[in-house]
């Protein structure tokens, strides 16, 4: 931005607003992480203070490690998230390519139909989904979760990606056709690399709700072998007694993988969100 378009008071004002928002957004996360390193008494006595030599306690983490099979839960969460993400991106991008590239009867209707899922929460269909999974013998499998999450993520993916795919130059695709590339190679080799920022955006928006979801693991796959991290953490929340150390430790640990994946995607994500707005 040029110097003429910025002024010091405006810059300070803008940063103040953004910093306030960041503080509000990060505060709960910070409280969770800080308290996960404190003893039970310290958590209740002064929930906002940092752990001191007296109050520092790793009891939460040792409990989490000792009780239940947390590594398995982590592994389940990762498998479900990564597999769903893969299918959402693959099928979402393919549907978006078809909608943006080919003229066929009902193209617009198909686009609207696929976008409908953005407005209607998939949880409304929980009973039917459960019946379906019971009938097909998929209850208590990770497959059940992957299928549901793929369906949940597709509408937004199709919606965002088809907008981006419309911007890919027609000439480029046609050059590929003249050089004898198949439609699949045009899609995978020419178009997908050009919409990578949009893919990263979709990946982040799809990934976080899946990782954090408690609803479907609880209903479709509550068995010990298929528990996800968020469901695993519920072990420590009882009706009468809650092991806060363990809950906080489990949640702190659950943040890590998403954080890593986010750093992995973030540069592309920012480009995806700001493209069009800045250029």
């Amino acid at each position: 931005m040029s110097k003429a378009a910025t002024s010091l008071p405006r810059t300070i004002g803008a940063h103040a607003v953004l910093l306030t928002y960041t503080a509000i957004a990060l505060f709960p996360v910070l409280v969770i992480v800080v308290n996960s390193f404190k003893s039970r008494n310290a958590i209740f006595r002064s929930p906002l203070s940092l752990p001191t030599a007296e109050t520092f306690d790793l009891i939460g983490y040792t409990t989490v490690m000792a009780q239940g099979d947390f590594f398995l839960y982590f592994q389940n969460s990762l498998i479900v998230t990564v597999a769903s993400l893969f299918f959402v991106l693959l099928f979402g991008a393919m549907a978006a390519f078809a909608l943006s590239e080919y003229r066929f009867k009902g193209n617009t209707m198909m686009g609207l139909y696929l976008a409908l899922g953005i407005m209607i929460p998939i949880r409304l269909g929980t009973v039917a989904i459960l019946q379906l999974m019971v009938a097909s013998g998929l209850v208590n499998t990770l497959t059940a979760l992957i299928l549901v999450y793929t369906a949940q993520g597709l509408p937004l993916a199709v919606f965002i990606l088809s907008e981006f795919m419309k911007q890919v130059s027609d000439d480029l695709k046609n050059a590929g056709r003249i050089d004898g590339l198949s439609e699949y190679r045009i899609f995978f080799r020419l178009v997908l690399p050009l919409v990578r920022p949009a893919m990263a955006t979709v990946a982040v928006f799809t990934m976080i709700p899946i990782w954090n979801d408690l609803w479907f693991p609880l209903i479709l796959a509550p068995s010990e072998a298929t528990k996800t991290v968020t469901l695993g953490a519920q072990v420590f929340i009882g009706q009468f007694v809650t092991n806060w150390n363990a809950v906080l430790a489990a949640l702190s640990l659950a943040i890590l993988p998403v954080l890593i994946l986010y750093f992995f995607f973030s540069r592309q994500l920012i480009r995806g969100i700001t493209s069009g707005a800045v250029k």
Partner: protein
Amino acid sequence: MGSLKIENVKKSFGPVEVLKGIDLDVKDGEFVVFVGPSGCGKSTLLRIIAGLEDASAGNVLIDGARVTNAPPSKRGIAMVFQTYALYPHLTVRDNMALGLKQAGTPADEIDKRITASSSMLSLEPYLKRRPAELSGGQRQRVAIGRALVREPKLFLFDEPLSNLDAALRVNTRLEIAQLHNRLKATMVYVTHDQVEAMTLADRIVVLNAGRIEQVGAPMELYNKPANLFVAGFIGSPKMNFVDGARLGETAKTVGVRPEHIAVSQTEGAWKGTVIHAEHLGADTNVFLETEKAGLITIRLFGEYQTGPGATLYATPDAARTYRFGEDGKVLG
């Protein structure tokens, strides 16, 4: 080499009819330019020839073979696009090689062809670069090189110069003309710029609203336009059209080119006042509001001192005046 025959090709997008029955023969080795205003269907016609778009009716024959249902890669064509359309992730060399690799050409043959065409277009220093590291003119040369290595029966150009700046446009135009002289290949070229059409074409096809208005050599179109549209479209500045009734003629419209009008300060057919004069050095364009013929444009060669408010007499060259009937067709 290749000839091209188009038989009664029609194309509709939903209810909109873009091409209303096109018939055309292009001989082997000919350079044909499709020209027309935007939306006249010239690009659509080119895409139908390339196989990127299906015709609603009619046939396309390349080298005598009916290719109406053949995919683009099997038609023996190569195409150069307005936006270059180079593969961004491949080097210049791989951009040129991709089509041949897809067709299963042996590696040494690919090498030979790339060496030949890159030396012809002076692309050797850039072979290892990616398109993003090249300027617009270089990119378009690579795109032409990519077409060359395919050794096609038919070259198709879709407004290849429109994205280049004025100086580069003249250079690249010259290169394309030289390329045609050297290869003697059949080329079909689409443009909205009549200068490109006039300078490059063996034959020009003037399209308007989905129909062919006239086909002919550049000078034929200039000297013998078949109708009002072609007369107005070819030539710059545009031909002056005067209502026949105003001049006491039986024709509906009378046309005379700006360069076929003589001026004098003392006497002439149409007296008028200068509204504006454009001094371009090599020529001077004078806009004259005449009493008899309305506003006309006059093109004078060399410098001519005049300015707004001056009185001038204009006399059209009778031998080079065109008369058009009610239907817009030229009379006599």
